[in-house]
């Protein structure tokens, strides 16, 4: 049988900020230190596949501003955030841009698009 794996995770669900200990025993998880069900769910997600929304900026050609704020339309694996930042640093998009417009499709094959966070007019 595999050795139990343990991680300590701070819950972000509420100001309690419970310090939770997650232990993986075979295919099951044991969560300790949480005060509610939401904490348990969050702890297991953070243990198995932590994901984040990436929010950053892209360079803009011909815009009223030099940058457009963007985000991923779905959370992406935490360990791929820096790969995405590196890839996006070389991308330049032309104005005008509308909020919600897809600026990069399926970024790095992560099944998430990069979308614009605002309208941006042409210079």
């Amino acid at each position, binding site marked *: 049988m595999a050795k139990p794996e343990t991680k300590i995770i*701070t*819950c*972000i669900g*509420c*100001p*309690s*900020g419970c310090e939770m200990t997650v232990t993986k025993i075979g295919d099951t998880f044991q969560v300790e230190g949480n005060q509610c069900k939401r904490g348990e769910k969050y702890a297991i997600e953070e243990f198995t596949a932590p994901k*984040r*929304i*990436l*929010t*950053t*900026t892209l*360079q803009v050609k011909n815009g*009223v*501003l*030099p*940058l457009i*704020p*963007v*985000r991923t339309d779905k959370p992406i694996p*935490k360990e791929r*955030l*820096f790969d995405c*930042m590196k890839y996006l640093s070389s991308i330049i998009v032309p104005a005008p841009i509308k*909020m919600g417009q897809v600026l990069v499709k399926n970024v790095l094959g992560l099944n998430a698009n990069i979308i614009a*966070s*605002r*309208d941006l007019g042409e210079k």
Partner: protein
Amino acid sequence: MKEIKVDIAVVGGGPAGLAAAIAAREQGADVLIIERDFELGGILHQCIHNGFGLHIFKEELTGPEFAQRYINRVNELKIPAKLDTMVISISPEKEIIAVNKIDGLLRIKAGAIILAMGCRERTRHNILVPGSRPAGIYPAGLAQRLVNIEGFMPGKRFVILGSGDIGMIMARRLTWEGAKVEAVVEIQPYPSGLIRNQVQCLKDYNIPLILEHTVVQVHGHQRVEGVTIAKVDEKWRPIPGTERFIECDTLLLSVGLIPENELSKAAGIEIDPKTKGPIVTNFLETSIPGIFACGNVLQVHDLVDNVALEGTRAGEMAATYISRKLEVAESKISCLPGTNVGYVVPQFISSRAFSDKITFFMRAKKPQRNVYVEFIMNNQQIYRKFTKFALPSEMIKVNLPPLKDFAEKISDITINIIPKGEEGQ
């Protein structure tokens, strides 16, 4: 001088001003927004991270998305806005003098005015950080503007003083952009921002959060070369012998925000020394009848949702005022901060609101768990509400039932935050 007449003039086109203008327009008033930037939206444009709008839209938006939704509504309602326009003065007669490149000097005669100028950052000079004065010291929000709007990285190795939310969010942003954040240094024994930001902005990237420490020396001549930090005692005095040097080229300050009330003060509006914002009634009316205040110019909020909701209310109240339904109050009672309460908004309740439910906002002075927020009138507890947390970083909101339900003779109220079990003593 060009002259304009409007029902309601809104000073500031950030989330508070936009929400106020929309609400007032929806009540049928003729509204004008005056904004000093080249576009509407205010500070939200540089807050590119997500986490906004959970209360109003029930989804997690970025700052620019939140702003864009309000801007789109302003456009739908065809609310005019004077952009690139600076307000120079506001008079008690509700006359605004403003200036821009197209109109030159402008006189705006308004039936009512809504103050929505927001706040600005405290700087090095507000907290008296000792040491030399090299380049490389920025308020965190200014650094945020440089990185997110202008595309300019202000440094490579950072120390951030103050664990406010802007500071922690900038720690993550700078890390993503390839910089190294050496530490976030906080003078208090607890972080001053949200838990969520401690975890997702600092812990995620192993950025140390050093509590009960402050910067005691800035080093460098042309450019910051490092800072010396030291542990502080309970009175925030540095403890000799605890100093240590951290090498860095940039120091960011996330040490609080101040409501921007120069215009309000010059107009003669009374300011609360605790909030640094205008003193208002439950109608959000300042000490000058017909001038209302909302958003961060009134009290520094943690959540933009609360800013916008306050704006909506100010817009409704101003529209009611110009339709002559909101006359000057007969009398007012005071609402005073008591035990462990830093401040209370509103500071007054109008006698015409004694049959209304009143929403109070307040901040605890020090963190406490399992407390009652109690309301004392004539030495008696008239109402109390239990809350699990009273944290200085999280504004507390309490709805007080109509005062006339409690007493025949209504007088001033004191609000206390007290541990459960010690109430009414």
